């Protein structure tokens, strides 16, 4: 078995130099192409570049090829894909994009790499009444799911991840109210964020009254379905000194996988109190960055559901295994008075469902000091992204690495 360490030489070698966002809405009626195009243009301009300066692109592997592919965006924006790659799947892929970008930039395969994600799933759901594309049909078209799971009612992300919550409650006594606290405190963070789709504050009774969808998950345990797009540009640490924005360095990035697949990952995962790959990505990222959990000022954690925030708090070392619920209840995750601000923008639960690209963008804002819901003196943050058989952790910081 190979050693998990390595990649230390990538610490701080690249920076995120530009960020862009477009059209967060419940159902804005604008195509994914146009949303991505606009987000990319904004990110490129933010980096002080023009589209033809871009020469690399890294995107997640599972939704993006069918929504807005790398070749489409390079054609639309007019740049050469000197380096072009697909990362891991969905949230894990977006968060791990800097790992591929850093290797390409370090080796001179590209100078300025763009990463993006966008969708019009909110509009699609409104127009068609149900999902033909997006997360749901992705599962119904897969023969393994069609034949082994769906005929028995085992279908929807809420069911897949609700099953994890059920085990966490069974093994550690995690309570409904603790899940509720995650929804409530994430919403508190969203309330400060101009762009969040859900801003009305929540109290526990609101959470408990929200409709039960897939017991133990209520509506407020589940992330939104929305339209929108995000993009970010990465360049070398040296090139970042020329950018108009203050550099946000990629300090560490790590990925973790299981010997399961996109088909089997969510049912055959051995320990349902852990996310697939979730225990493995954090240590690699911390090691590359040379930091530990106590150094982290804020965390943008993939919150497809309340339980995923909770489990990632444990897996990233912010509390003991099984204590995630207690952490949220007793120590808190709001910017205003939490011990560890989490999902400072409102996350996927309350800002918008953009597979976590909004988490990367929010982390960059926090580190530039330009976030709506600013964590005071933020200089080191972590972003985490999940998928059905893999997980990624990214550590970003403001301090340049001395070479």
């Amino acid at each position: 078995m190979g050693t998990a360490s390595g990649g230390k030489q990538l610490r701080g070698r690249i920076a995120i130099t530009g960020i862009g966002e477009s059209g967060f809405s419940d159902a804005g009626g604008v195509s994914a192409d146009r949303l991505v195009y606009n987000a990319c243009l904004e990110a490129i301009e933010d980096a002080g570049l023009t589209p033809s300066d871009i020469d690399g692109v890294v995107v997640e592997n599972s939704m993006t090829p069918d929504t807005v592919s790398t070749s489409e965006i390079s054609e639309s924006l007019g740049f050469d894909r000197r380096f072009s790659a697909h990362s891991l799947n969905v949230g894990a892929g977006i968060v791990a994009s800097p790992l591929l970008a850093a290797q390409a930039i370090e080796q001179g395969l590209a100078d300025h790499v763009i990463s993006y994600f966008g969708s019009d799933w909110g509009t699609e759901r409104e127009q068609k009444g149900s999902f033909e594309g997006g997360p749901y049909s992705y599962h119904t078209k897969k023969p393994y799911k069609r034949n082994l799971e769906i005929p028995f009612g085992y279908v929807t992300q809420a069911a897949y991840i609700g099953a994890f919550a059920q085990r966490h409650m069974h093994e550690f006594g995690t309570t409904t109210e603790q899940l509720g606290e995650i929804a409530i405190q994430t919403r508190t963070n969203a309330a400060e964020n101009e762009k969040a789709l859900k801003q009305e504050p929540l109290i526990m009774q609101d959470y408990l009254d929200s409709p039960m969808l897939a017991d133990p998950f209520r509506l407020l345990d589940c992330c939104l379905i929305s339209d929108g797009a995000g993009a970010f540009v990465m360049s070398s640490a040296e090139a970042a000194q020329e950018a108009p924005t203050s550099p946000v360095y990629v300090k560490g990035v790590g990925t973790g996988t299981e010997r399961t697949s996109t088909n089997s990952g969510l049912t055959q995962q051995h320990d349902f109190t852990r996310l697939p790959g979730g225990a493995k990505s954090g240590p690699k990222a911390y090691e590359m960055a040379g930091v530990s959990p106590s150094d982290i000022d804020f965390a943008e954690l993939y919150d497809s559901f309340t339980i995923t925030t909770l489990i990632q708090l444990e897996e990233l070392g912010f509390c003991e295994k099984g204590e995630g619920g207690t952490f949220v209840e007793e120590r808190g995750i709001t910017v205003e008075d939490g011990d560890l601000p989490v999902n400072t923008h409102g996350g996927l639960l309350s800002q918008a469902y953009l597979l976590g690209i909004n988490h990367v963008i929010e982390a960059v804002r926090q580190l530039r000091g330009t976030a709506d819901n600013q964590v005071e003196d933020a200089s080191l943050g972590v972003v985490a992204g999940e998928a059905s058989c893999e997980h990624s952790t990214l550590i970003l910081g403001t301090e340049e690495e001395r070479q």
Partner: protein
Amino acid sequence: MTHPNIEPDMDHELTAPYWEGFQEEEVRLPQCQDCNEYVWYPRPICPACHSQSVEWVATSGRAELFTWVGMEYHFRLPFLKDVVPLYTGLAAPVEAPDVRIPVLIDDPADGDPDIGMELLPEFLETEYGMKAPLYRPVE
């Protein structure tokens, strides 16, 4: 408790035998004939020993409930619209404790299903004309 109205794709070679077993009222699982490991999800070779002698064998049907979810909303999915609320979950066959099969669980007499409860299948005719297992706790 009614099965969701979504019939399996019997052209999928790797999983069609599961449903062939159901028509004979058996829960069959793929098992490597060389090392005896169960291969789940079904694959053409054994991940443990790489043998290609993987065959579907009958099990007792007895399985222990690992986790469950109470589906109360149809999520705008046509095949769920008429069958929710229902209980679904994952169960570990007693012969293959590392295997987790998705199961439709009958309404317990009171309250929710219990993790750890032992289940046995009864084979019911579905709307699409095939037999499929509905799991009930062993009395």
